[in-house]
């Protein structure tokens, strides 16, 4: 693989960039792999990458029914934070955030991780207490956050209105090393690195059946032929219920549409991420200058990648309330993604009723931030059958009533 650098770009410029090679190969599926991962989104690719990097497992195929990074990886609002309340979540998301710090160097691909800081606004007394609790928990979890005053909020976000007539800002939970990254680049960087390790990223390849023998997985049938495997990872987000069905088990999951929108690009005016959970909206400014805005989910199962417009209205109203200048911007584009939501709103990284089949799903509205950590943990789960970061996220927790409920800290989609 040709390394990327400013020198490489300069060299190529001399010959009008005719020498750049493919970022990832376009291989035909082989008959057998040690591990097949279904789903070449960020999480699936990161899982493969860490199988190779951490455990030397490189006979891996990542099969994707569409194009890599084409699902929620490429349609989220790119927020990265780890200020979660519960220990298992904080561990996983903080691992992930830490991996983002060095991802560009690790992958030799600039994913533009921008630790610009994330504020979650407290706009009721209840929220103040909730975020103070999170700050205390984070301090013991090794997650660096602090609860800050309204004055400090205003210093960090000059365009904010902290004295709104209905929900004045009473403080905020501030994570200085939270931020954003370029979502597509995360998938592309992982795909390039996986391909470079000799793994096969196979696009336009839909799994039509999961073959089992004696309760164990032996392979998958795909639209591009049968593939045998020792182990199978299912990492397909909104399609988890469907693929689990192919393996013969059900999931505690519902798929709903989550919507987001961007404004037209403007010159930089806000260099932190702000989340306002009381009024239900969150906003950051992309490096291109667009204000990237997210809101709520629809209340019904949906696979259309479209949502109902009244959610957009609610979100925009919330943001105008918080940032009055938003009123004079224009909405450029709105879209929807299908998110898989579990019974406790926390993800599932788990063994399944089928031996050697592992599933990673249920990230709901917050999966992007977890991409590298999820891959790190999932690789260990697939390789060893367990791991400290995944042990609490098993499917068995629903039976046992052992939930990981983050709703105390995060009332809104993100």
């Amino acid at each position, binding site marked *: 693989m040709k390394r*990327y650098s400013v020198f490489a*770009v300069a060299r190529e410029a001399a010959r*009008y*960039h*005719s020498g*750049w090679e493919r*970022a990832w190969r376009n291989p035909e599926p082989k008959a057998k792999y040690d591990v097949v991962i279904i789903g070449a989104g960020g999480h699936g690719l990161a899982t493969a990458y860490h199988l190779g990097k951490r455990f030397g497992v490189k006979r891996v195929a990542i099969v994707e029914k569409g194009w890599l990074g*084409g699902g929620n990886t*490429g349609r989220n609002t790119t927020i990265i934070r780890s200020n979660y309340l519960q*220990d298992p979540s904080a561990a996983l998301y903080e691992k992930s955030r830490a991996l983002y710090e060095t991802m*560009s160097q690790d992958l030799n*691909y*600039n994913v*533009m991780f*921008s630790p610009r800081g994330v504020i979650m606004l407290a*706009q*009721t*007394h209840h929220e103040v207490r*909730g975020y103070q*609790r999170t*700050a*205390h928990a984070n*301090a013991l*979890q*090794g997650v660096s956050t602090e609860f800050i005053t309204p004055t400090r909020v205003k210093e960090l976000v000059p*365009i904010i209105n902290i004295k709104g*007539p*209905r929900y004045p800002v009473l403080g905020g939970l501030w994570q200085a090393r939270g931020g954003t990254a370029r979502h597509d680049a995360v998938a*592309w960087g992982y795909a390039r690195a996986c391909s470079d390790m000799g793994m096969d990223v196979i*696009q336009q390849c839909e799994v039509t059946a999961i073959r089992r023998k004696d309760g164990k997985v032996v392979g998958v049938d795909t639209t591009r032929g049968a593939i045998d495997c020792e182990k199978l990872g299912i990492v397909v987000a909104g399609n988890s219920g469907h693929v689990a069905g192919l393996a013969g088990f059900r999931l505690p999951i519902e798929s709903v549409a989550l919507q987001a929108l961007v*404004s*037209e*690009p*403007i*010159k*930089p*005016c806000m260099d932190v991420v702000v989340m306002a959970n009381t009024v239900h909206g969150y906003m950051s400014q992309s*490096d*291109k200058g667009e204000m990237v805005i997210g809101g709520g989910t629809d209340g019904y199962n949906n696979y*259309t990648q*479209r949502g*109902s*417009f009244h959610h957009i209205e609610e979100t*925009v*109203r919330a943001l*105008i309330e918080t940032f009055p*200048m938003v*009123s*004079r*911007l224009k*909405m*450029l*584009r709105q879209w929807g993604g299908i998110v898989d939501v579990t019974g406790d709103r926390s993800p599932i990284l788990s063994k399944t009723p089928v031996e050697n089949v592992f599933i990673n799903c249920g990230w709901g509205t917050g999966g992007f931030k977890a991409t590298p950590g999820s891959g790190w943990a999932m690789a260990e789960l697939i390789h060893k059958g367990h791991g*400290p970061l995944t042990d609490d996220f098993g499917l068995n927790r629903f*039976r*046992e*009533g*052992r939930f990981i*409920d983050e709703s*105390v800290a995060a009332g809104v989609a993100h």
Partner: protein
Amino acid sequence: MSKRHSTGGRLLNREKALHFTFNGQKFSGYEGDTLASSLLANDQMLVGRSFKYHRPRGVVAAGAEEPNGLVNMGEGGRFEPNQRVTTTELFDGLTARSQNHWPSLEFDIGVVNSRLARFLPAGFYYKMFIHPRPFWKYIYEPFIRQSAGLGQAPKEPDADTYEHFYHFCDLLIIGGGIAGLQAAKTAAKSGARVMLIEQTGHWGGRAVVDGGMVDGDPVDNYVEQTVAELAALDNVTLRTRMMGAGVYDHGYVLGYEQLRDHLPGSMGPRHRLWRIRAGHIVTATGAIERPLSFAGNDVPGVTLAAAVRDYLVNYGVSIGQRTVVVTNNDDAYRTAFALHDAGLSVPAILDARTGLGKTDMRERAEARGITVMAGHAVASVKGGKRVTGIAVCKQEGAGAVVQEIACDAVAMSGGWSPVVHLWSHCGGKLQWDADHAFFRPDADKAPTGDAGQPFVTVAGAANGALKLADILEDADAGARAAAAQIGHKIRKSKSPVAQREEEAPLEPVWLMPAEAEVKLRSKAWLDYQNDVKVSDVQLAAQEGFESVEHAKRYTTLGMATDQGKLSNINGLAILSDALGRPIPQTGTTTFRPPYTPISMGAIGGEARGEVFQPLRRTPMHDWHAAHGADWEPVGHWRRPYAFVRDGERLKDSVNREVLNTRRNLGLLDASTLGKIIVKGPDAPKFLDMMYTNMMSTLKPGKCRYGLMCSENGFLIDDGVVARLDEQTYLCHTTTGGAERIHQHMEEWLQTEWWDWQVYVANVTEQYAQVAVVGPNARRALEKLGGMDVSKEALGFMEWADGTLGGFKVRAYRISFSGELSYEIAVDASHGLALWEKLMEAGAAFGVMPYGTEALHILRAEKGFIMIGDETDGTVIPQDLGLDWAISKKKEDFLGKRAQARRHMTDPKRWKLVGLETLSGAVIPDGAYAIGEGTNANGQRNVIGRVTSTYYSPTLDRGIAMGLVLYGPDRMGEVISFPGTEGATFKARIVDPVFYDKEGEKQNV
């Protein structure tokens, strides 16, 4: 140079001159001008700088598809960035400034990027700025961000207002060109309610610019007559300046009406957002001309051929005085004719079609003395900030220059693309039309509605019918089909017939010349605003970004504010060619709403500031406001947090209220507490299911504190239940819980136990309720006079109906403070009067109102739990030592099975205790108690957490409640709560009841 002619300009009112400024310079135009036409009339060809390379850019189009002409407009509270000059109607006093340059439009330092363009190809940032790591955040990113973005951020709050409208119609027709007009005319005959909307201020669309004859009359007359006819019909609604912004599921359409953008400062809302429910939608949204991809096609003066006509015909403005026309189709000849007929020079028509024979258009051109160079193309454009000439080459070949032509404008046409956005928003599919080289709607794969029926029909140019006669026919047929869809028949009638002009077929030309070398390709723009060139898309393909979505995201093609209206198809063709596969196989990117950007203000509508969300007020709200209430939002209610007296700090007020309530008498407005009537023969059985307690055994006249759990076992609400009679209960809920619990009850009654005879009503707002609390409570009530409130007549946890001070009341002897306490409920309309009377009667007994914070402290001193503090959705009643409130006798209640699960019965669950700091200090909110060592993930082990923590004025020390591992078994032990600011709080585990453990005070 561009200039205004002394004649022409069908939209102008030359009687009325308008004055405006651009970059501080004074200009003038006429009523009817757009900002674009008036700038061009003043020879202001340069209007902005491109996003990435800061290339000088001029206006390239005349409508909503314009990618270059974006300006900062207005001042102060009416400032707005990225206003499109081609759709901005000129008004007197308009101020505009160009964007994305420093220090000025003419001399922009950023243009250095253009010199470096070779080093900044598609996706360069993914390959660079990787090392050293901290540089991205501190050096590279700030630099990139500074150079990104277009217009300035608005600084002041919006000075305008916005509103929302609902509209219902049978047929919504979007687009007021001749297709939309004819469709409306045909459809209106059916009697259906028709709405026709047009995004500009004018009817007729392109046809009135291009001319032609309908039924033997000029098309202008047809438009005028049709509009007049439609306006006279009762079943037709016409709106201009209203865009169909988006089509959503089940026939929901977003209309965006710009009411006052052209009349700023006048009375009324600026924009109106229409939420339209239509039985069926006809999109007659026309087509957009495509640029041609040749080197230098972004130099100001290179303009779409049809736009050149628009400016000339509509505004009397010519972009150049010597204009070369370059085309692959017949339509652009009309531009040459229009220019020539206006006395302007057209040195040549470069017709790239290699197989061009003798065509009608060619003959007409040559008859005018215009040279037609068949099979020829533009090799490159000369000039920097404006066109000075072109180099001509053969279309076939690599671009060897055969001739140079001096000119000051180039009119280009690469064919047309139907505007299929609205068709596609909700899932309508497209098909590739190879003859015309465009995607058109596939009528068999329309978006489907609530009953699976197709709900969009496309008419006219949007449907691929580009000629006047075809458009009218298609619109008539489309309207009939659409009306039939919704059950309206239209009798056969003669539809208008337009004169046919013969046109030779187009030849697709995606790159000019066909074998252009890389030097040319890297100067041939696809996406003007985002600076994406042919070479960029080819690089994407070379690097494996083969999917159209990959290529788009890698190059940013089509992601600018015009959302690829000019660039998508051209880019797609280049990508397909690079991959060696047909265009339809490559497919298009997804079309997403809105069609063009719409204001956030309009989306937000009226609901902002004070009316952002509904505000619920108790009958005593205004009294509280007048008496120093410091408000706390609780749901949509506002409750007084405390009543602050002059010169008092908030916390002093709270402490005063607590002490006064303990010592004398406090009044609390408890009206917001939920009150739900549950009535019917099966009400006892039902409440036994809803509550963990046994409610069926409660005697009429008595009250009982009840706990409610979700089916998942968690504690969701609590409150006092009063049995009113054998079949009737009144259930109190928390303030935030009233609606939720009411719905929870309804859900179970309607969907699980639908054969049980129970009726549930939420009567929260029917009553005002006042808590009369403190040792003097009884005396105050006795002073009011009326019912017997003695211990004997109304014992603790009893209720009675009666009168007090002349009010018909229901008095509950319940206490959330541990004091002697009555809650007096009265008809809501008497709430304020009762409150005032109680204040008056209590004056002798030291009465003071108290707020929610005092309420919290009073209950914490007594060890009473608070939903939302001691509970957070993860807590079961057993955790809180509330086993006494969980009936062991009942076979079933909601949550019972759940609470039997492994984790719920785990002895390691944290349990409620009281916490007393050794120093008397207050433990910070939310603090955790630390245990030994760390867990497998390196996190500090914790053994508990604080759930409520207060300074107790009664005890003059910090008190807290918390959930602690083995807590109740560890009474007296000291555990540590680290704060977030270095200090650690050591606290002793104690009984959670800090005050009046025996409960004597409430029983007096």
